């Protein structure tokens, strides 16, 4: 076993092989068998082709030497992988020019994959250099052989190995060159893909961080606005009125569900009328709370309430003037409350009639409002220029603004209608019946919301 001195590798490249050769020569371990091994391996293995072609292809670089040696498996076993590894390390550190390219991953080198990759990373090596055959290569050929077998007399060997290199490599030259090129291309492509993927991941990470920040900010804003709203009625910031109402409504819904659950359990446990009365009145009062919230929300943002954006899409389908339709609710309730007295039946029927009439009246009023608003906005103006026309335009806008203000009053009337319908219903029915009616209403709304969720969850074919 030759003991390589890694420090000796720190010399400049062209002389490296020579010095080691010299070194080897000094150590004088004539081992003719090695040379024959070398020859043998050069002839037989594919790796040999690789190594020899790489010898040809590489510029004057000790890496070529080392690598080509290591391609041949036999060398590893003969000379000790560890020592090669250390030498390679030395080479790698000193030699900044990693012109040598190993596209092939088939090399089983003891020093580990990192060096393969390091070499593989060099994408600068072109195919052109493969065909360069000059004196440098001759030297390398020479040094390859000399290092590999540690033979003392290099001259003879040089000639032989060079001849062998040349003669054996030429027929397989094209194939190997092509294979090498393909490997290089594949490696380059995979590197580019990897880079792109990593870039994508980085971008997504940054975006995620941004979104989280925004969400945090929005949540804080919402909380602040909500607390601001409850603290000071007059302080409703424009644009946050909708948000504040949405949050209040969400809280209202949760509270409502809780009250309804209490009512349901009370009914199931056959609670006494007095306690039930308290619960029922609690639910009705909670509805009053909703109308109060809506009136505040309407003052802040009437269009938000009117549009029903605070309801789920399926509920929004049935919206009338910013809320549920009283006559609809009564229809639902009536069918579920079979044991009604004559008086109660009449009462419910009248209630249904009057709420229907009121709804019609308000709807017609809304239509008239829309009509007059569109008439105001579509009044033709004489021309774009002229101060008189500007005044006219502003006048029109002022009228339109006034008309818009009546929107809030319509919304208010509609909510009053709903509130009064609920209260009248409570008055007509007994406590037990009223409790059942409230549960029925809640079931209906829950089913509508569940329908909404299902609709959103089901994939639809387009």
């Amino acid at each position: 076993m030759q003991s390589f001195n890694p420090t000796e590798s720190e010399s400049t490249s062209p002389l490296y092989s020579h010095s080691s050769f010299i070194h080897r020569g000094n150590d004088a371990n004539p081992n003719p068998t090695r040379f024959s091994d070398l020859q043998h391996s050069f002839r037989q293995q594919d790796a040999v082709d690789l190594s020899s072609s790489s010898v040809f292809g590489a510029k004057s670089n000790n890496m070529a030497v080392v690598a080509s040696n290591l391609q041949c498996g036999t060398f590893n076993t003969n000379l000790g992988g560890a020592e090669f590894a250390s030498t390679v390390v030395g080479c790698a550190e000193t030699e900044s020019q990693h012109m040598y390219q190993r596209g092939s991953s088939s090399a089983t080198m003891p020093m580990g994959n990192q060096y393969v990759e390091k070499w593989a990373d060099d994408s600068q090596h072109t195919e052109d250099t493969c065909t360069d055959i000059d004196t440098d290569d001759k030297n390398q050929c020479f040094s390859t052989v000399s290092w590999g077998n540690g033979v003392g007399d290099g001259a003879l060997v040089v000639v032989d190995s060079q001849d062998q290199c040349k003669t054996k490599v030429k027929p397989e030259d094209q194939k190997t060159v092509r294979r090498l090129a393909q490997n290089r291309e594949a490696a380059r492509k995979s590197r580019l893909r990897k880079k792109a993927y990593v870039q994508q991941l980085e971008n997504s990470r940054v975006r995620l961080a941004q979104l989280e920040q925004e969400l945090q900010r929005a949540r804080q804003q919402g909380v602040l606005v909500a607390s601001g709203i409850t603290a000071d009625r007059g302080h409703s910031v424009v644009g946050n009125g909708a948000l504040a109402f949405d949050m209040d409504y969400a809280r209202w819904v949760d509270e409502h569900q809780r009250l309804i659950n209490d009512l349901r359990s009370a009914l199931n446990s056959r609670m006494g009328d007095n306690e039930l009365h308290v619960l029922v009145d609690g639910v009705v009062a909670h509805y009053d709370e909703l109308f109060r919230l809506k009136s505040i929300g309407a003052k802040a943002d009437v269009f938000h309430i009117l549009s029903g954006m605070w309801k789920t899409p399926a509920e929004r389908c049935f919206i009338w003037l910013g809320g549920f339709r009283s006559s609809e609710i009564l229809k639902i309730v009536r069918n579920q409350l079979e044991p009604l007295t004559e008086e109660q039946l009449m009462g419910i029927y009248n209630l249904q009639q009057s709420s229907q009439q009121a709804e019609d009246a308000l709807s017609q009023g809304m239509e008239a409002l829309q009509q007059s608003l569109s008439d105001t906005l579509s009044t033709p103006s004489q021309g774009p220029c002229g101060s008189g026309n500007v005044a006219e335009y502003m006048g029109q806008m002022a009228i339109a603004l006034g008309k818009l203000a009546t929107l809030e009053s319509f919304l208010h009337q509609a909510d009053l209608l709903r509130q009064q319908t609920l209260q009248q219903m409570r008055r007509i029915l007994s406590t037990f019946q009223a409790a059942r009616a409230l549960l029925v209403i809640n079931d209906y709304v829950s089913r509508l919301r569940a329908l909404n969720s299902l609709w959103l969850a089901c994939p639809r074919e387009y």
Partner: protein
Amino acid sequence: MHYQVESPSAAAAAWSYLMRVRSMEEDQMERVVRLASQSAVVIFSVSSCCMCHAMKTLFCGMGVNPTVHELDQDPKGKDMERALMRLLGNGINTTAATVPVVFIGGKLVGSMDRVLAFHISGTLVPLLKQAGALWL
């Protein structure tokens, strides 16, 4: 009463103006009350007001034939509106629209919210029947 004035004539002029306005209002108040008693159902409205339109639709839908006085078409409309405001008792809230105002059987019912409240609670129809606006 003792007050400082620049000139007695200006004070007199101001005072007389005030008295005139007062009397005008009182005139209109009387007029309003008079008009309200003339029919079973009287609605004071403004032709361009949509809530008034809704009110009219409501009564017509019930089969009632209300007498409508359009204040914007009356020369003394402004004063009548002021009188109505005082009747309703919302003199402080001048931004909200006064009309529509309904009188049934000469008695003041109020604005739209009152009418709806009465209707839902089932007291409107008896009231109308009592005033003779509805039969059956």
